[in-house]
């Protein structure tokens, strides 16, 4: 096949070294792809919902991660299969765009693929299936908008926001203190949110973790926490009304880029050079002092001498502060990052009400807190936890919660969770299917079936009878014409999600549907896989 003949009957090669490559074509290729897509989604299926299980991942270096965040699992899974990689990408893009529902999107895509396989076996052309899926996803998309509710909250009434964040956190390992974490997340987002423009810059929220203490000790700091300590052990540990010079130049003699040599051939030169050097250090410190700085934060290191001079002049300093942190400090304190000592002016100093060094536990860990900043827009969430894994997982969970809060501020439409939105869409798509003549009808119906996969997995993970529960909820939705019924995962006793306060953002849900459909369409269109065979 990969070998063709020209008009003289001589063979020529289209595909190079084909005996070293394995090739799958046609239906086989599609089936292989679907199988690997399904395999990935099956891994994630058990992590869905508040009763979902965690995965333990061991990295190439032997570090252990325990998580049930879909995006993280897929990212660390070290996948080799091309289609599986597509699924990883899918979850990642949901993570970038929305930040939540990363597991749901993959489960959805897996279900779509599964149903596509059945249709393929019946001889329906993949393009027709993907067209049907496209139509169905549009119907579902519009239906979601139809059942969405406006979600009322304001800066003073944050309770509804907290409830939403709690839904997100309840599926994570941190659900022991979901209430306090949700409050932290909402307050953090509101602190940096621009309610006028409905925009939230999550970069302004820094999430910092330190091993030790309890999860309950996690706190929100209106300011910045830097994992550094004062450059000199005897500098004051607390500075009030600090004026901060933020420097990116080292307290060291200049190192011009151009190559040069200073020749010393007489004793006088030797001495002048020495004096100049001393003067240089003195000048640097003097300049900081002159502009009125009471704290120096430097991206680079200091020489011992400079360190002592700073100490001596009563000018506390922090060294080796990372670039990102430096920027955040600059934003928070309203200061400017100064690249040269000559450019230091009083206006460029940042201001903070309180800077203090805090020690933890029995080890010598210290961190610097910069609080009461001139511009309180930058906040830090400081996580404490039993071990490194716990902290990493808390970071990820908080990230999800922050994203949810942000999405709500951007767009305050919500749909109810617990699989209720999926069930409602499934009903709508099913009903719409009959109106379409032609083969697409089957694909649309398959889409409706696939939508049931999410509530089904939810029910299964919660230890309920999946089929029984789903059909009961579905009939209840149709009977009462109320799209708020979902799976009662937490065994509360009602499956009205409005009463349970379980909801998700509309854009998150819509995004899930669109992304899943897109990827499935892409996978269905592949009919030839050429890969280097193993050697």
């Amino acid at each position, binding site marked *: 096949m990969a070998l063709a003949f020209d008009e003289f009957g001589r063979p020529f090669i289209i595909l190079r070294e084909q005996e070293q490559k394995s090739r799958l074509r046609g239906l086989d290729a599609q089936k292989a792809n679907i199988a690997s897509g399904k395999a990935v989604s099956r891994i994630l299926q058990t992590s869905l919902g508040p009763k979902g299980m*965690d995965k333990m991942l061991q990295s190439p270096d032997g570090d252990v991660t325990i998580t049930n965040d879909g995006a993280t699992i897929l990212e660390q899974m070290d996948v080799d299969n091309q289609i599986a990689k597509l699924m990883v990408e899918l979850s990642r893009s949901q993570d970038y765009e929305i930040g939540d529902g990363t597991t749901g999107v993959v489960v959805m895509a897996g279900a779509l693929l599964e149903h596509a396989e059945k249709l393929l076996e019946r001889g329906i052309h993949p393009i027709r299936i993907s067209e049907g899926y496209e139509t169905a996803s549009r119907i579902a998309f519009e239906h979601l908008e139809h059942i969405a509710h406006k979600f009322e909250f304001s800066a003073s009434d944050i309770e509804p926001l907290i409830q939403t964040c709690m839904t997100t956190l309840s599926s994570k390992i941190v659900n022991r203190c979901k209430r306090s974490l949700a409050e932290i997340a909402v307050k953090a987002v509101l602190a940096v949110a621009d309610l006028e423009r409905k925009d939230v810059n999550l970069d302004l929220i820094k999430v910092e973790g330190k091993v030790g203490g309890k999860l309950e000790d996690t706190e929100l700091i209106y300011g910045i926490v830097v994992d550094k300590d004062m450059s000199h052990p005897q500098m004051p540990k607390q500075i009030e009304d600090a004026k901060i010079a933020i420097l990116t130049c080292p307290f060291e003699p200049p190192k011009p880029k151009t190559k040069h040599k200073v020749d010393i051939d007489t*004793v006088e030169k030797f001495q002048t050079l020495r004096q100049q050097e001393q003067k240089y250090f003195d000048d640097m410190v003097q300049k900081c002092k002159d502009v009125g700085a009471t704290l120096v934060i430097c991206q680079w290191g200091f020489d011992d001498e400079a360190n002592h001079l700073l100490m001596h002049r009563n000018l506390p300093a922090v060294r080796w502060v990372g670039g990102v942190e430096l920027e955040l400090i600059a934003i928070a304190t309203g200061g400017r990052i100064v690249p040269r000592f000559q450019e230091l002016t009083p206006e460029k100093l940042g201001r903070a009400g309180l800077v203090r060094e805090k020690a933890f536990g*029995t080890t010598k860990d210290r961190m610097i807190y910069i609080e009461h900043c001139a511009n309180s827009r930058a906040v830090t969430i400081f996580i404490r936890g039993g071990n490194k894994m716990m902290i990493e997982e808390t970071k990820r969970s908080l990230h999800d919660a922050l994203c949810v809060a942000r999405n709500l501020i951007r767009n305050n439409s919500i749909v109810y969770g617990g699989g209720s939105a999926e069930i409602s869409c499934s009903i709508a798509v099913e009903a719409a299917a009959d109106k379409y003549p032609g083969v697409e009808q089957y694909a649309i119906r398959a889409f409706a079936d696939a939508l049931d996969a999410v509530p089904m997995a939810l029910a299964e993970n919660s230890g309920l009878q999946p089929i029984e529960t789903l059909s009961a909820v579905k009939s209840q939705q149709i009977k009462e014409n109320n799209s708020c019924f979902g799976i009662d995962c937490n065994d509360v006793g009602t499956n009205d999600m409005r009463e349970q306060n379980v909801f998700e953002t509309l854009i998150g849900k819509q995004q899930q549907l669109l992304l899943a459909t897109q990827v499935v369409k892409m996978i269905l269109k592949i009919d030839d896989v050429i890969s280097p065979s193993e050697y």
Partner: protein
Amino acid sequence: MAVERLFKDEATEEKGERARMASFVGAVAIADLVKTTLGPKGMDKILQSTGRGHSVTVTNDGATILKSLHIDNAAAKVLVDISKVQDDEVGDGTTSVVVLAGELLREAEKLVNAKIHPMTIISGYRMAAECARNALLEKVVDNKLDAEKFKTDLMKIAMTTLSSKILSQDKEHFAKLAVDAVMRLKGSTNLESIQIIKKPGGSLKDSFLDEGFILDKKIGVGQPKRIENAKILVANTAMDTDKVKIYGARVRVDSMAKVAEIEVAEKEKMREKVQKIINHGINCFVNRQLIYNFPEELFADAGVLAIEHADFDGIERLALVTGGEIASTFDNPESVKLGHCKLIEEIMIGEDRLIHFSGVEMGQACTIVLRGASPHMLDEAERSLHDALCVLSQTVIDSRVLFGGGWPEMVMAKAVDELARKTPGKRSHAIEAFSRALVAIPTIIADNAGLDSAELVAQLRAEHHKEESNAGIDVISGSVGDMADLGISEAFKVKQAVLLSATEAAEMILRVDEIITCAPRRREDRM
């Protein structure tokens, strides 16, 4: 159609029951490993490093043992981690936390085999942990206001902590050392100002607490060996010919005479620097970096005691205790804060000569000199003492105290049992299991002491059924005894941390239903 390969080569995946099995087995194995070191009659472990020399450590400190293990099992790593955190945060109970987590998982395994969903077990464990914590909170004793009682409390805690260590022979002696040292800190948890110096030789009993500061260095040749009312300048500066720091500078000469001139200038510069230092009016100079022969000679001439190459910690601590500042430039002698102490002298401990600073300004600092037969003994003694110091310093902050000897576990188990009886549904099995895991700890303590654990624990349980019982296991006499009379106490903070972190770790491992191990990163062959 099966997927041939989803993961990279060598990556492995374990699912469902198999994954759970793997993590249970790993975690329980780790717990069993350290189990025998628990309690006053626990055994030690010998750890041999794979590094050069195959150095040997003998210890029964849980955190130290676990830190040195090379573990491949992911769940086991979780346990090692919690033990490390326990060490960092409260300093003691590193073994108990692992053993409790292991017991919790062992019980969970049985429940899982009986077809109870892990999530149900987790929610039961959570309720039980909360209930156990409240039970402890009700029973705590806080003697913070009564200084005398508080001190005896501290003493008891120190003795309890030390009794499971190598120091148990002289626990009273060491408990007193530790309590004295911590009381000097006056409430700060900064253990840095307590210095521990290990000197082989003598016996453990010869260890002592010194209120001054001891620096393990020698005094330079020809310099005074004893200084009264010392003024100390603590510095961090290079005492060789200062290199010119301006980039690109180099010396270029065209004759031998010039070389000599520069050399003289360098020497002059050195002399100036030394002179500047001496001008501070000091009679003792301590530098972090080396002091070369030439400046040393100059210092000797001026009658100044110069100590070179004190390490970073030494310098900081010295500056802290003498109240001086660490200087690096010497141009303004009037504004540099000097350190003071009443007396500097050279003392002999065993064969070694050390420098002793006594009568320092800050009373908080002190030095504990450990003596012992072998370096291994000393290392272990240091670890034990460190545990005791950590616990004590934490207790000074959170002065709530509980009895020891398995008493808290029994109290918790009783409360948890009652909760189990009240809870409807499957969760009650998990809560019952929690209480069984708690009781396992006194059982192990008794087992390690070679006692009849079944009999003792049963007696203990009966005792605890009475109101306000103080019964616990008296390992020394091998019977159930009154912990208040025996003076066995533990810090509440330690117990609470053990309870919470063990539950957290068990929960974390229980929630896992799939283990994916990535292919190990290939090491490039260096040869």
